[in-house]
């Protein structure tokens, strides 16, 4: 389980979830991993079906959208310089402070499933969520993911 170095952003500065989604979406579009229009699609999808998870000690978000917007299944990571509010998944208007974002570019449900399952497992451990927010580079993140397997 490994995240590509180019898809790991440390201390992203953003004032809103929209800015986070745009910055990460741009990164994925720039590499041809997703199609033009991905940003609009993921913004709309986040509005309709929010992806903030109320994990401890702060929230994690896993924004994603329809597989048809994706060329190549990959996962991008960003830690946020300061937390931004995301709406909580499956809740009515519950806002949570998110510091860690995994943007999922998935073509089919099976793609990256193993990775996704592992990540979800890690989100349930507050210590790991804390460490994810504080990593300094892609290598450190991958080491963290490796050690927790």
């Amino acid at each position, binding site marked *: 389980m490994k995240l590509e170095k180019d898809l790991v952003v440390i201390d992203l500065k953003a004032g809103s979830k929209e800015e986070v989604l745009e910055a990460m979406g741009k990164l994925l579009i720039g590499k041809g991993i997703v199609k033009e229009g991905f940003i609009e699609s993921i913004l709309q999808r986040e509005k309709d079906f929010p992806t903030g*998870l109320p994990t401890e000690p702060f929230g994690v978000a896993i924004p*994603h959208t*329809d597989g048809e917007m994706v060329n190549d299944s990959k996962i991008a990571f960003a830690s946020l310089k300061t937390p931004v509010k995301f709406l909580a998944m499956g809740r*009515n208007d519950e806002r949570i402070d998110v510091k860690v974002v995994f943007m*999922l570019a998935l073509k089919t449900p099976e793609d990256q499933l193993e990775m*996704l399952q592992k990540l979800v497992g890690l*989100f*349930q451990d507050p210590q790991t969520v804390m460490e994810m927010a504080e990593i300094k580079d892609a290598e450190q993140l991958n080491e963290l993911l490796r050690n927790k397997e």
Partner: protein
Amino acid sequence: MKKLLIMCGTGIATSTVVKGKVEEWLKENNLSHEVKIYQSKVSDEIGRIDDYDVILSTTLVPDNIRDKVIDGVPLLTGIGIDNMYEKVLAEIKR
């Protein structure tokens, strides 16, 4: 055989993770042979929600079907899992 539907907004990410976890749980509790799992997205299922015996969703569903749906988000956050499985079990055994 009970029909268990797992749904999310796109039918692509969280429902897949939840499906894996529920499959494991069914196996551990010797229920695999009693339950068939379906995976989908909310928009495809709203009109035929009564076809299923148990429904888990990671996304908010419209008010008129909310009573029939169990919140599956605990499987993603780890918070409230036991309570959630109690509800699922009650529906399977009903």
